[in-house]
């Protein structure tokens, strides 16, 4: 027998199929199909954890997802250590190792339990009140200490080695919850031809039929009917059954997120298979069949291990074959608990008494309990539970007061009634309505195309539930199918229930409402006395319902006590909003595939393999990998960049510019469009010529720049910055569609169509010449800033003569797949002329030597053309372009704006830090008045000194002035000068 509390003839598990497990290092045996909770209970273990705040001993309250107490750590190996696993949800597998949490040194003797004795100090709002002074201590002392003392479980400290996957799914009908209502609705919808997804959080479908023995459906007992129905659904091609799958979030337009736990129940899962799968379902109609959750009774010390929900005890008995005690008492306000007593009594467990707060409970269940000889004590209340690590007895008093009686028991089953699970309905933005007759919140106004059926809709009784589900299923399918007939022969009738604290002394005792956050009835009353009026404030002040169980068992009690204390009806106090996730969701499921290489795309150019093979060091530019520099043997970055810069100017260099954004602008109105998007004039640019273009935002600031070639009257080849490519395309498309829809012009991204090889330097023409066909490379045939189409190495090329170095230069565009091959051919030619490959760092230095700006480095979104010294790029006769009005704003033309200038350090060896601040007077007191900052700064081997660009207030009027850059190690003197440091006359462009 797997556990001494296992009852031979009860339950649905197979006694021969045992599974061994450990809890806090001790070995136990359970059965396949057990949850960790049922296996522990079978071994007589109720004490499984310590509470969050008071470290009180806690047991297993429930048999499902609502469990607030039984949180354990499940450890498969060092990396697979999952904290806060609900023992009532974790399925047992052979070899499972679980540990209790929140205790030291042991579960039975926990030092932290001193908090329980000190509890008068830990009342509601304790943290807010106590740690107010001194204010500065909050961050340095209080918060870190509170954080280390608080919290549940220990996070794993290794990367999660498991896989997680994702799946988008679409269906006509999503049914959430696979109890009697959900199964029926799914069959009705599927038989009508709808595509159906049915998910349920448990391993097996059946919902409340796990414990509800009194149901007879279609000639079978309820459980057998549920299994047969699930099997029938599984065989239908239009149905997808998802057990172990929780619908945790209900978003707009019937978008529902589910997590499927694929392997957590397996002893040795396939490590290549996903542990969990995130389903993102778009359903035409959602049927919510999420049932109801039983509430506990609120009385003194109601958290003692051995006190559990009546339905949970019934589940452990009827499904798992486990008796939760040998001498069980029941405390209820509701009929359903009687069935638990009846089932246990019939199974041979002694039922000490049923204590019922109602004065005259009646009905079939009461009669049957009485006929079985169970003592029923109506009109009485349990005023205290005795026993610390396990309940040993309860004190019972008449509600109206009087002599108390102690009833011995080793388990107490409680039921204050049932709370409909309106969580998903509320998440869908539906409005709940309070039903005064039954004292519960039910779905009221629907916001989405969904319907609630069964217990979550407040429908009582199996027959009514099934009828409602049939209707909902066929309605959801949108067309009547075969008429579904389900016959109910027997069902259980439950009535009764109460909200709030049970009768008895309530002012000083710990009568828990929220077990997970250790919130008592007293705390709620105190919150009201301290002025909280809205339930939203009461909730935050007391933390009621704010634990990971989201108050599934506690919210209604808390609300009722607040309402009572305020002397207001419940609906006036209000219900807090339900939010996703319904139950905790792993980060693994949320990120699923987006880890490692799939976290973000890594973009590589066609020439990347060559650069890699030639030792390039890469830098990240957006998603791109770009060759940063090409160190030769013994070179550090500094030496490599110096060599590359000198070689380009002395001989030639080759640079992979493929990442530059490229847009082909085509149509009869192409030039008109360009006129509107750029500051420059384009109408008169002849085909075959290029121009450096500047694009502004509407506010007049520089947005992007690039060289544009006109290939034909109606065709431009536009280049953008690497990082700006997508947004420039969007910017252009946005204006085209919204502001200039009358223009006949179309935009196509050609960034990836063309690999771009920049060949720069005095020998560049000689290097490309032998490989070209059909292009005259003479200065007359192809002057600086021109573009030609022809062939290189036998494949098409768009050849630009342009320069971002200031030396003679070309950019060879070839179709991407030819990029590397053409590069190699050019490399072979280049070697004959002493060319080198250079990376982005040398490119930056070379352009800075010439004062060419980089948008985003020398500009920051607040720089105008004038600030950057680029007024020449504005078409003076133009009357309209994006930004033309913004440019004229008073503060954009006011004197004293920061202007781009060159900076030369007095000591040529000092390289300034980019971002360093500039002041006019280094001796002024701190904080100094900053008049500018360094935007670009490099060592220039070609100049034999450091160079820098800076934005300085009124900079162009300060030529020759000495300014100062205060740094931690001292003040650096700089002189303002031209932005051009090399070849000021620009003769080398044709050199």
């Amino acid at each position, binding site marked *: 027998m797997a556990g001494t509390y296992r009852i031979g003839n009860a339950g649905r598990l197979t006694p021969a199929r045992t599974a061994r497990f450990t809890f806090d290092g001790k070995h136990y045996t359970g059965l396949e199909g057990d949850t960790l909770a049922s296996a522990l209970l079978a071994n007589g273990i109720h004490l499984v954890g310590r509470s969050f705040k008071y470290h009180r001993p806690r047991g297993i309250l429930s048999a499902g997802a609502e469990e607030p107490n039984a949180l354990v750590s499940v450890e498969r190996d060092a990396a697979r250590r999952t904290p806060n696993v609900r023992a009532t949800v974790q399925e047992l597998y052979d070899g499972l190792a679980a540990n209790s949490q929140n205790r030291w040194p042991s579960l039975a003797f926990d030092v932290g339990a001193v908090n329980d004795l000190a509890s008068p100090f830990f009342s509601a709002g304790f943290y807010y009140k106590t740690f107010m002074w001194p204010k500065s201590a909050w961050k340095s002392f209080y918060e870190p200490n509170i954080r280390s003392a608080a919290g549940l479980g220990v996070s794993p400290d290794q990367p999660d080695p498991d896989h997680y996957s994702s799946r988008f799914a*679409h269906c006509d009908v999503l049914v959430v919850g696979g109890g009697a209502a959900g199964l029926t609705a799914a069959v009705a919808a599927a038989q009508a031809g709808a595509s159906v997804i049915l998910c349920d959080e448990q391993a097996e479908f059946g919902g409340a039929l796990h414990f509800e023995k009194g149901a007879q459906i279609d000639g079978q007992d309820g459980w057998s009917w549920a299994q047969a129905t699930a099997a029938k659904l599984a065989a239908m091609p239009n149905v997808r059954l998802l057990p172990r799958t929780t619908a945790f979030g209900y978003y707009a337009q019937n978008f529902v997120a589910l997590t499927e736990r694929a392997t957590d129940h397996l002893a040795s899962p396939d490590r290549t298979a996903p542990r969990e799968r995130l389903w993102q379902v778009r359903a035409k109609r959602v049927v919510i069949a999420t049932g109801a959750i039983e509430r506990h009774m609120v009385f003194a010390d109601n958290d003692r291990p051995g006190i559990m929900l009546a339905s949970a005890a019934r589940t452990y008995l009827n499904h798992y074959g486990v008796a939760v005690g040998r001498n069980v008492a029941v405390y209820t306000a509701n009929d359903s608990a009687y069935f638990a007593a009846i089932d246990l009594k019939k199974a041979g467990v002694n039922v000490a008494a049923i204590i019922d707060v109602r004065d005259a409970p009646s009905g079939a269940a009461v009669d049957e309990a009485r006929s079985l000889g169970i003592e029923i004590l109506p009109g009485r209340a349990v005023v205290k539970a005795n026993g610390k690590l396990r309940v040993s007895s309860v004190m019972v008093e008449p509600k109206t007061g009087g002599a108390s009686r102690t009833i011995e028991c080793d388990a107490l089953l409680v039921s204050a009634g049932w709370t409909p699970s309106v969580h998903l309905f509320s998440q869908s933005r539906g409005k709940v309505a309070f039903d005064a007759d039954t004292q519960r919140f039910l779905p009221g106004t629907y916001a989405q195309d969904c319907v609630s059926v069964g217990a979550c809709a407040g429908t009582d009784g199996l027959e009514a539930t099934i009828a409602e589900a049939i209707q909902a299923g066929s309605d959801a399918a949108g067309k009547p199918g075969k008429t579904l007939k389900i016959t109910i022969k027997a069902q259980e009738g439950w009535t009764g229930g109460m909200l709030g604290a049970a009768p008895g002394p309530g002012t000083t005792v710990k009568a828990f409402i929220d077990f997970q956050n250790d919130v008592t009835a007293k705390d709620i009353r105190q919150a009201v006395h301290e002025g909280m009026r809205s339930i939203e404030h009461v909730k935050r002040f007391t933390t009621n319902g704010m634990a990971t169980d989201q108050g599934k068992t506690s919210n209604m009690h808390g609300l009722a006590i607040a309402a009572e204390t305020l002397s207001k009806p419940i609906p006036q106090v209000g219900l807090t909003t339900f939010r996703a996730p319904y139950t905790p969701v792993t980060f693994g499921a949320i990120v699923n595939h987006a880890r490692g290489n799939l976290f973000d795309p*890594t973009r590589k150019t066609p020439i990347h393999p060559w650069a890699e093979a030639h030792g390039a060091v890469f830098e990240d530019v957006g998603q791109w990998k770009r060759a940063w520099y090409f160190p030769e043997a013994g070179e550090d970055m500094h030496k490599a960049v110096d060599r590359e810069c000198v070689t380009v100017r002395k001989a030639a260099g080759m640079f992979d510019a493929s990442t530059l954004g490229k847009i082909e602008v085509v*149509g009869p109105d192409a030039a008109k469009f360009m006129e509107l998007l750029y500051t420059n004039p384009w109408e008169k640019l002849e085909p075959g010529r290029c121009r450096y273009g500047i694009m502004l935002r509407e506010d007049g600031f520089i947005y992007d720049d690039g060289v544009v070639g006109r290939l034909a009257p109606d065709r431009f080849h536009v280049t953008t910055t690497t990082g700006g490519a997508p947004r420039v395309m969007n910017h252009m498309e946005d204006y085209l569609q919204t502001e200039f829809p009358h223009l*006949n012009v179309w935009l196509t991204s050609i960034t990836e*169509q063309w690999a771009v090889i920049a060949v720069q330097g005095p020998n560049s023409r000689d290097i490309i010449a032998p490989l070209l066909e059909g292009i005259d490379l003479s200065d007359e045939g192809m002057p600086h800033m021109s573009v030609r189409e022809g062939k290189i*190495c*036998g494949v098409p090329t768009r050849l630009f003569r342009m320069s971002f170095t200031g030396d003679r230069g070309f950019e060879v565009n070839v*179709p991407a797949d030819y990029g590397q*091959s053409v590069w190699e051919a050019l490399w072979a030619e280049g070697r004959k002329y002493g060319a080198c490959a250079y990376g982005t760092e040398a490119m930056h230095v070379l352009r800075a030597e010439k004062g060419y700006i980089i948008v985003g480095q020398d500009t920051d979104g607040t720089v105008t053309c004038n600030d950057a010294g680029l007024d020449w790029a504005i078409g003076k006769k133009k009357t309209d372009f994006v930004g033309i009005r913004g440019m004229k704003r008073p503060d954009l033309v006011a004197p004293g704006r920061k202007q781009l200038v060159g900076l030369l350090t007095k000591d040529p060896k000092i390289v300034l830090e980019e971002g360093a601040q500039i002041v006019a007077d280094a001796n002024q007191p701190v904080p100094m008045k900053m008049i500018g900052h360094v935007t670009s700064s490099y060592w220039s081997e070609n100049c034999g000194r450091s160079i820098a660009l800076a934005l300085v207030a009124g900079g162009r009027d300060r030529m020759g002035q000495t300014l100062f850059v205060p740094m931690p190690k001292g003040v650096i003197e700089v002189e303002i000068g031209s932005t051009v440091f090399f070849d000021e006359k620009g003769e080398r462009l044709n050199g």
Partner: protein
Amino acid sequence: MAKASTKSGAVAERRPALAGREIAAAAVRVAVLPPAERISLRAPAGSVSALSKALGLTLPTKPKTSASKGGRTALWLGPDEWLVIDEAGKSPVADCAPVKALHSAVDISHRNVALAVTGSGAEATLSAGCPQDLSLAVFPVGAATRTILGKVEIVLLRTAPDAFRVECWRSFSDYVFEFLGEAAHDAAA
């Protein structure tokens, strides 16, 4: 691979992305398709018939559809936008060049990389990262869409009940390939 000679004798060799890579999972195969000629075609409604004639197929005008003839497929991507793929070695750029009707035809043959995702798990594989409904009823053979896969944009064409063509930009092909590899592994479920 295509080779061409120049006066210097240097010849450019075509080196497609993902060359030689393949995924074979239980229910899915992901193969890299050979290079093809492609254009991005933009045109107003009035030019459709002239362009259809020039291209030798009827450009589809219904959203999410495609038309195919003689190794050439036109995918509707928007009210004035088509992706034309030619797998028969003919040039759609050249075919559109003489058309006088208003249009823009831009060669993007090298911009895109194509993958074939085939097998009983093909739909599930794509559904790992594509939020659209890819069921046969909603996305039948010949259906085409510009959509996303995980974090990148793709163009998707259903070529058979169990087969899709995935087109993505060249530099995203590593990501797409790896994503499909992971998804293919999970597609049996």
